[in-house]
């Protein structure tokens, strides 16, 4: 299996495994994935509890391995701080993840779905608005709880052998819960991947409505499978997911403002439809400007370094302060970015809708 820093597939086995799994997922998604959706519903309560068991088992293993006496919450907190999540330098080439990185990333790693509104492709079938609470179950149970459990198991692996830094969910789960753990990892991956390919297929089909959804989903699955073979993408998932979430986030803000807020400012919702235009410039510009601002903030340190190396500026204390203060890691930029996009859409709509009246 490729490592975190590999760029290209490094074995035939890896390529074949990705091709088989990706192909199967694409075929099932192309058939509409109704059976998988039903199966996922049955598996969900079981899967959540297996995640919880991972945490309990890992905790006990830590207690035994360290010989810690745990008689109170204070003892447990001490064990957590000194043995499980004790911190340390990041692996070479990786960002140091703090508590806030994990919190933000657990919240925003599915930002493309929740904030970027990709969820709407599934929630369009919802008969009650509160069905959207399902998204929070994904975040708080599927991310926060599952990740806490997974991190205990991984920390235990490192505790036993600090040189063993491989992140392999299958063996980790198998060591903690045997066959059930392994089954949980497979089902969790399967039931996550299928709706993703299904809605990606729907999205591509929206670009060419006359095309067959079956074929479009298969092609989408094939593209995703080929991409998955390259560790440059698969092993950089954190940054990649943050980036594609960032790309969709401003449009999620536009949809939210357009549906819930814009009439309160005396403006029209669905303005493109009302004015019979194929393109709403207020939405387009809000997306582009927000994305540009976010990318500049993420790359600010790099931009300043380049400008200094080209002799445009000389590095001063003030410039260093600007670099240190305003450079934002990609994991954190989306939250302020959402508000920037929302504000921009309102301001641009004020100008745009005054200029172009709807043709009633």
């Amino acid at each position, binding site marked *: 299996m490729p490592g975190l820093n590999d760029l290209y597939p490094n074995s035939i086995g890896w390529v074949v495994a990705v091709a088989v799994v990706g192909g199967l997922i694409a075929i099932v998604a192309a058939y509409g994935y*109704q059976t998988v*959706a*039903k199966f996922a*519903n*049955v*598996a969900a*309560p*079981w899967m959540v*509890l*297996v995640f*919880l*068991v991972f945490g*309990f*088992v890992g*905790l*006990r293993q830590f*207690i035994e391995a360290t010989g810690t006496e745990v008689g109170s919450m204070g003892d447990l907190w001490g064990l957590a701080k000194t043995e499980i999540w004790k911190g340390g330098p990041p692996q070479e080439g990786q960002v140091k993840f703090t508590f806030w990185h994990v919190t933000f990333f657990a919240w925003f790693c599915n930002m493309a779905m929740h904030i970027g509104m990709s969820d709407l492709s599934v929630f369009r*079938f919802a*008969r009650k608005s509160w069905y959207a609470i399902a998204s929070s179950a994904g975040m708080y149970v599927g991310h926060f709880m599952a990740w806490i459990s997974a991190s205990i198991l991984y920390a235990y692996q490192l505790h036993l052998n600090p040189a063993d830094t491989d992140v392999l969910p299958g063996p980790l789960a198998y060591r903690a*819960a*045997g*066959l*059930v753990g392994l*089954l949980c990892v497979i089902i969790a991956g399967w039931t996550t991947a299928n709706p993703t390919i299904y809605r990606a297929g729907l999205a591509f089909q929206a670009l060419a409505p006359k095309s067959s959804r079956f074929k479009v989903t298969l092609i989408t699955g094939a593209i995703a499978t080929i991409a998955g073979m390259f560790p440059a993408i698969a092993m950089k998932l954190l940054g990649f997911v943050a980036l594609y979430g960032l790309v969709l986030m401003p449009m999620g803000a536009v949809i939210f403002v357009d549906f819930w807020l814009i009439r309160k400012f005396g403006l029209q919702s669905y303005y493109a439809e009302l004015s019979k235009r194929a393109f709403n410039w207020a939405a387009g510009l809000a997306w582009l400007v927000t994305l540009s601002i976010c990318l500049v903030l993420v790359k600010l340190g790099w931009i300043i370094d380049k400008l200094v190396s080209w002799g445009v500026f000389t590095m001063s204390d003030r410039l260093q302060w600007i670099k240190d203060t305003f450079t934002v890691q990609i994991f954190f930029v989306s939250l302020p970015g959402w508000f920037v996009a929302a504000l921009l859409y309102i301001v641009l709509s004020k100008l745009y809708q005054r200029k172009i009246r709807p043709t009633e």
Partner: protein
Amino acid sequence: MRSILQIISLLALIALTLPSVIFLAGNMELNTVKWLMLVATIVWFVTATGWMWKDNGTESQQAG
């Protein structure tokens, strides 16, 4: 029948989780936990499918 299946599947979920709590308290071997979880998993999927699958089918027919 449906109520019986629901009760058994609920008990299966308890049987899935409880051994790990006992293990955490230091009163059970990990191998025993794994075996009990496997049995509970089989019972869950057999019994829950019996009532949840039908529910979903009805739902999608209504939606369609």
